[in-house]
């Protein structure tokens, strides 16, 4: 493993598999235990540096670090020195001086974790940077797929929605490709980046044509503000063409699963009866997020052998 986890491309197939296997071992070790805590990172300090609001990711990382017995500091940009104009570099050097071993960073600017990695000696984990990547989300998605379907090699994954602005999509495309899955991205052409032709994916504008062949459908959140920028005419039209409703779910194969990184817009990209169906892995994804992030922190800080 590299020292940092900045993007999915930092993981080769061996590394990625090691993370997933480690997460599975952690799950087993903690299963049925009353005290869900391992002593592995006792005395180490993990800083959650969150420049964007994110309840689920921050709590997930916090829980992961605490279950490994690390000391955790939550540093959110609001109400901190950042709101007084402190630069990312100065914040990084301050945290470094306080002896942080790992910085988990969420930032609205693509590449901010890469910059941070130049300025600190400890490990940097990207918890979502702008419209670039969110590698631990991709890891927990891969873990969830493997758990449900038993494999990743050859699994056909459709990623549906605002690929252009989605860090989840970028990380998933890269990681799923690394792990041997076959990815199709489905979106209106306005929500696909120019240059997508070089990605290791199939591209489709037609959700109905893709669904019968998909083992996994991963729905992306669509931000309301995209509507005002003419990416699509209306929420209703988007939902009609690219939303996953009960009728479309019926076109899926028997074992196919439906994923969503959350938070969902019920009724927009995903219908309530789909989100709450047995195919949906949405709640499992959240739970698996903690295990996978424990594995990442353990491997970056604790050692390279499985727990």
């Amino acid at each position: 493993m590299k020292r940092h986890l900045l993007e999915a491309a930092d993981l080769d197939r061996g590394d990625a598999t090691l993370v997933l296997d480690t997460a599975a071992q952690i799950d087993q070790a903690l299963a049925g235990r009353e005290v869900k805590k391992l002593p592995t990172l006792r005395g180490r300090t993990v800083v959650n540096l969150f420049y964007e609001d994110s309840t689920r990711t921050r709590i997930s990382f916090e829980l992961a670090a605490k279950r490994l017995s690390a000391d955790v500091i939550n540093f959110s940009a609001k109400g901190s020195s950042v709101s007084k104009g402190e630069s990312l570099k100065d914040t990084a050097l301050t945290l470094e001086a306080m002896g942080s071993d790992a910085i988990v960073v969420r930032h609205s600017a693509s590449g901010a974790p890469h910059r941070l990695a130049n300025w600190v000696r400890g490990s940097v984990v990207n918890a979502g940077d702008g419209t670039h990547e969110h590698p631990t989300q991709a890891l927990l998605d891969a873990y969830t797929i493997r758990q449900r379907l038993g494999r990743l090699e050859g699994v056909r994954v459709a990623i549906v929605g605002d690929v252009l602005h989605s860090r989840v999509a970028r990380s998933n495309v890269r990681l799923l490709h690394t792990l041997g899955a076959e990815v199709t991205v489905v979106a209106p052409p306005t929500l696909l980046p120019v240059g997508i032709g070089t990605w290791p994916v199939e591209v489709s504008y037609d959700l109905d044509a893709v669904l019968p062949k998909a083992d996994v459908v991963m729905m992306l959140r669509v931000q309301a503000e995209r509507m005002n920028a003419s990416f699509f005419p209306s929420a209703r039209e988007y939902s009609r063409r690219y939303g996953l409703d009960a009728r479309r779910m019926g076109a899926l194969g028997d074992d196919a699963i439906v994923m969503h990184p959350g938070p969902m817009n019920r009724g927009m990209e995903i219908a309530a009866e789909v989100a709450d169906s047995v195919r949906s892995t949405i709640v499992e994804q959240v739970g698996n997020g903690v295990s996978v992030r424990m594995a990442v922190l353990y491997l970056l800080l604790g050692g390279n052998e499985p727990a």
Partner: protein
Amino acid sequence: MTNHLIKGARPYGGEPADILVTDGRIAAIGDSLSATGAEVVDAAGLIALPGLVDLHTHLREPGREDAETVETGSRAAALGGFTAVHAMANTDPVADTAGVVEQVWRLGEQAGLVDVVPVGAVTVGLKGERLAELGAMADSAARVRVFSDDGHCVSDPALMRRALEYVKAFDGVVAQHAEEPRLTAGAQMHEGDRSARLGLTGWPAAAEEAIIARDVLLAGHVGARLHVCHVSTAGSVELLRWAKSRGVQVTAEVTPHHLLLTDACAEGYDPVFKVNPPLRTDEDVQALRAGLADGTIDAVATDHAPHAVEDKESEWAQARPGMLGLEQALSVVVETMVETGLLDWAGVADRMSVRPAAIGRLSGLGDRSHGRPLAPGEPANLLLLDPTTRVTVDPASLASRSRNSPYAGRELPGRVVHTFLRGVPTVLDGKATR
């Protein structure tokens, strides 16, 4: 005034000759010249070129003297072999009145290292709403002939048309920053494979090309001169070639960085490589070189854009666009155009001195002319270049007050050894004289 006898230089890379400089002018060029009382400058093996003229320099004064001043920028220019630079208007306050352009001009005279030629803003405050007092700036002591809202596009087509027409009265030219703003909202880098992967908002080539296409049509329609700043795409070169073939009075410049660097530099998110227009693809670089070689692109202009450390040591999206260029411009041209065989030394002189001076209307100013040939009777504006030395760029050793050089750690060919402005050495042995 001390006279100088420059021994053994090779004018335009040709046969070695002596150049006698007296009273600010070139007195003679020939074999074994001698002159009593003249200071001898050993220039054996050095290439003599006319002093370079930059159409596009940001000197940051007034307003951001922490990033650059007229004096520090002038020193950087002289060290790069320049004898005249056009100072862009996006200062604070904006150079949109006779008062501000005269202030910049006077600061240049005081520094005395290059002729600082102010560019006037096209519109008040660079806001793109109404014309600045272009005539007042033209008539001022600064004698403004080039007008630009650089950093912003004059995007309103009606306003652009009026500006093009209006400056004809004093033989001015509008230098357009070609960027359709509705296509570049939030743009961070060239839109293509890399922007898609890096998650940085794309700056499409079409946003530049659409404005160039519109403006050459407007310039042709009203019979006015148009200059296009920092052309960055292969499509722009094609449009310019088409417009010139139709007789439109359009000229264009390319920056050294667009001749050398590509959007691959954005990998790693170091904002020292963030610039507007952005670094493009290798295909664009090759088209720009070809366009400069065949004259479709008239000039190399630096777009020297100093920025304070805190404006670059940040997240990519928060960093200000722009990079230093004055001190390495000639070396980059040597690497990309001379060593590749695309331009000879006379061609370098044409694209970096003769044509930019003509565009800025600096060629016919008598003693204060620039872009004149190396010939007896001409003002002694010249540089002497050692073409064989290769220098590794160290931002800390630059004369600019800022450090945002995209060439840090890169080895480039050529070193400016001496520069003369009207017979007065501004650089001797690679060091500024003041």
